[in-house]
């Protein structure tokens, strides 16, 4: 804690920038907001925590006039503010960066930034403005770049610039870091600190990563089932306490470790927590009995003699003349969790698209259970027994405008239909069972997936993929946007799947996650595998070198 942080905490705050009193909102049977009181002060970063579906996004949308509250008042300074539309919110100096990107891919950065402006479009002025904001806050971006070419971190920068350009005095960020790498998150927080300290703005930060909240915020509020259950100065609480308050019970060390994981790892061996070796013992007996993997050549044979459940052979993918994957080979044995670790943007998403059947390789093969999959046949991967939790669930994981029930059965229509007709009874039966089993909270099974909270959308995908009884499960960034409890749950399910004989390919940019779950770690860099290590031998240094493209 720095001196001026301490000083600010000791000075009694003046009138809060924003006060919420008794805000309530319900959607049918779901209470999204239940008499919420919240004070946000100038010059502070206010953390907002809560499980998936606790009502964080809803509360912020109410603040922004996007959702109409049932009751309650909002005070902006001394004045009551009746915010009923985003324009009023903007006029009151409230700006928000939403949970999901809202940029248009086919447009350039500056076009996206000025989108929604009225009046004449002045390209040079717009570009100049983008550059100015970007310089002022240290958010480097090329205003002429097309958004679909940008990495997640860069897109987040664009969203932020778009918001900061309007000079909001209250800035709301809804899970801004769930798609960012550690380094990118760290940069973001530096920017936020500066915005708060030098310009006396107020920031509301929503995140599931407890470490971020503890490191970056001054004050923290925890929501549970729409209600404020905990409120404290950040310095007076601990991540463990916050996790307990969120979930309402103690959470396991492992999930907590992952939730805490965003803290920069400074050189030490993250596996020292002791969880990783456990994992290897619990879930991958094959590895223990098999011979040591061949780490030198980088080929990946888990256990000679065992037919790998998933075998990727020399996969090369060229997109628009750029080689996204080159000669990628991996074997994953039944019952094994293999972590594919690497910095965002090194071919992971293309690999995910390939295993979703959306991209065809230029060369190479995919074998499931020893049999090559005809990738050009629609649904072949699914039929071969490969389930996938895609990284960007909105683009291919769900159909936002179809109901929960429909999304849950859409890959296995055969199970709910006879002679081409869909049995609604069967469909709702399956949906209700899965919703209960996977804790999907929603007003009804007819609710469109679009109106689910981010975490619940992810559960829909997980439920669908796991319920199909896959022999291979590919999980790309499966915990993005999940709360601590849900992360714990996701980990448990991945491990249960593995101990049930499913081969799990865990694609992740989070070191702790990979270390905690995987028995072997493959490192990807520029579309190739730079090395495969058993988790026990993986040190931060070795991984760091592999991630940088240097063979360990």
């Amino acid at each position, binding site marked *: 804690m720095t001196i001026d942080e301490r000083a600010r905490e000791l000075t009694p705050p003046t009138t809060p920038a924003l006060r919420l009193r008794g805000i309530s909102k319900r959607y049918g049977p779901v209470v999204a907001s239940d008499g919420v009181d919240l004070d946000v002060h100038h010059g502070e970063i206010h953390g907002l925590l809560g499980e998936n579906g606790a009502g964080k996004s809803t509360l912020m949308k109410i603040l922004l006039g996007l959702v109409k509250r049932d009751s309650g008042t909002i005070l902006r300074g001394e004045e009551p503010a009746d915010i009923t539309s985003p*324009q009023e919110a903007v006029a009151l100096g409230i700006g928000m960066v939403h949970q999901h990107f809202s940029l248009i891919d086919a447009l350039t950065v500056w076009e996206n930034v000025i989108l*929604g402006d009225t009046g004449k479009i002045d390209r040079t002025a717009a570009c100049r403005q983008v550059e100015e904001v970007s310089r002022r806050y240290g958010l480097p971006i090329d205003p002429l770049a097309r958004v679909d070419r940008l990495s997640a971190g860069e897109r987040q920068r664009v969203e932020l610039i778009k918001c900061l350009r309007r000079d909001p005095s209250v800035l709301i960020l809804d899970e801004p870091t769930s798609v960012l790498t550690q380094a990118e998150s760290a940069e973001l927080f530096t920017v936020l600190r500066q915005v708060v300290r030098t310009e006396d703005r107020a920031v509301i930060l929503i995140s599931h990563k407890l470490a971020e909240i503890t490191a970056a915020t001054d004050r923290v509020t925890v929501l549970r089932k729409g209600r404020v259950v905990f409120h404290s100065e950040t310095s007076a609480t601990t991540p463990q306490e916050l996790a307990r308050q969120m979930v309402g019970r103690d959470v396991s060390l492992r999930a907590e470790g992952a939730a805490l994981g965003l803290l920069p790892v400074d050189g030490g061996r993250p596996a020292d927590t002791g969880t990783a070796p456990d994992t290897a013992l619990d879930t991958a007996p094959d590895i223990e009995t098999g011979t040591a993997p061949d780490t030198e050549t980088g080929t990946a044979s888990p256990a000679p003699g065992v037919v790998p459940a998933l075998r990727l052979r020399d996969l090369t993918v060229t997109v628009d003349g750029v080689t996204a994957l080159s000669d990628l080979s991996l074997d994953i044995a039944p019952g094994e969790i293999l972590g594919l670790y690497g910095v965002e943007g090194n071919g992971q998403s293309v690999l995910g698209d390939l295993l979703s059947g959306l991209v065809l390789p230029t060369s190479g093969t995919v074998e499931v259970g020893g049999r090559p999959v005809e990738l050009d046949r629609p649904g072949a991967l699914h039929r071969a027994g490969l389930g996938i939790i895609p990284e960007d669930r909105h683009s291919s994981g769900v159909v936002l405008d179809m109901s929960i029930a429909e999304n849950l059965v859409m890959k296995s229509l055969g199970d709910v239909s006879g002679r081409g007709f869909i049995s609604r009874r069967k469909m709702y039966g399956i949906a209700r069972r899965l919703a209960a089993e996977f804790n999907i909270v929603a007003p009804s099974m007819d609710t469109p997936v679009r109106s689910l909270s981010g975490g619940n959308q992810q559960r829909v995908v997980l439920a669908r993929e796991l319920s199909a009884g896959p022999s291979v499960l590919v999980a790309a960034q499966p915990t993005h946007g999940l709360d601590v409890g849900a992360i714990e749950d996701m980990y448990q399910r991945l491990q249960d799947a593995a101990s049930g004989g499913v081969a799990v390919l865990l694609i992740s940019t989070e070191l702790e996650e990979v270390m905690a779950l995987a028995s072997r770690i493959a490192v990807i860099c520029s579309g190739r595998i730079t090395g495969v290590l058993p988790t026990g031998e993986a040190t931060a240094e070795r991984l760091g070198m592999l991630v940088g493209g240097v063979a360990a």
Partner: protein
Amino acid sequence: MNEREDLGSGDVLRRLLSNLNPGPSGWRTGAATILALLVALTLSSLLIAVTGGSPVASVEALFQGSMSDLTAWSSTLLYAAPLLLVAVGACVSARSGLFNIGQEGQVLIGALAAAWVGLRLAITGPLLIVVMLLAAGLAAGGWAGLSSLMYRLRGVNVVVSTLLMTFVAQQIVAYAVNTPWLLQESRIGNAIVSPQSNPLPSSALLGSIGEYPGLQINAGLIIALIAAVLIAVAISRTTWGFKITMLGRNPLAAKHAGVRVTALGGAALAVSGAFAGLAGAVLLASPVGVNRLQPGLSMNIGWDGLLVALVARNRPLAAMPVALLFGVLRSGGGFLAATGVPSFLVDVVKALLVLAFVAPPVVVALARRRRSGDRTAGARREAAPVAEEAIA
């Protein structure tokens, strides 16, 4: 307590309205539609008054021609049938995300195929009309399918190609009725031959239930009603409909879920074309026309059917009453023209009414976007708040 009850009734109202209009809608849209209809009617009356007619007399004429007696009703229903068929097909393609707007041409192709079968094939008995209908559906379905092929092979936009193919279809039909060995009417003595086919034999005509001056219900209408119900069921209850919906809502997810995207999209186009073709056969073989193939046979039914689907927001069942309304405007419009009001005014009135139905949802959505200011793009992904506002 009070508040909660209020919320309850608001909920009922919302559900009622959203049944009328699928997608994010609500009382705002409902109110806007009523307002727009009033504006359209006022404008129409003004127009009629300005061009020297009497609005009241015009409404009377409209009513006379379309609903005043059973004969008028019969004529209305004759128009409604092909309109409904076209609209049902348009619902299918629009829901799959592939917009077929070439129905006018597909109607002609269907009529051409039906005429050829009816005049050139030696089929006797009731089988003839069945084969005619089949041929019309197949020919127009294949015709529309060509657009899907062009998309697949050359990436030609479907909207553009279906539209342009309409003009090709018009040329083909014109050629057919001007070419003696194809379908031009036979020369009797030294009489001048017109660009039209011979009249269809009576065995090639669609029968009717009921007789003049009573209510006549042509088989075409029954076919159209059955088609609407079948497609409504297919869309909401079958795996095929499920896949079509998935394809229209998120093609990537559909592909991921194992849908044969190109094949299914092509099929949706072909089905929509086939229904337009059936409409063509109905136009040819029902008493709405002269039972000959003529270049003008389609009478813009293809375009109007597209509008019916638009107003019905791509729901086959909702298309039934809308097709009836358009039928009223057609049969009443003819009568209106007969009383001296310029006939183009009928088209203007029709256009105004269509706008009144189609514009409000768009305007409401746009207003919402404007209000959401800088988050314009946000409306795309964060539609929850949009739906929310509709409730509010």
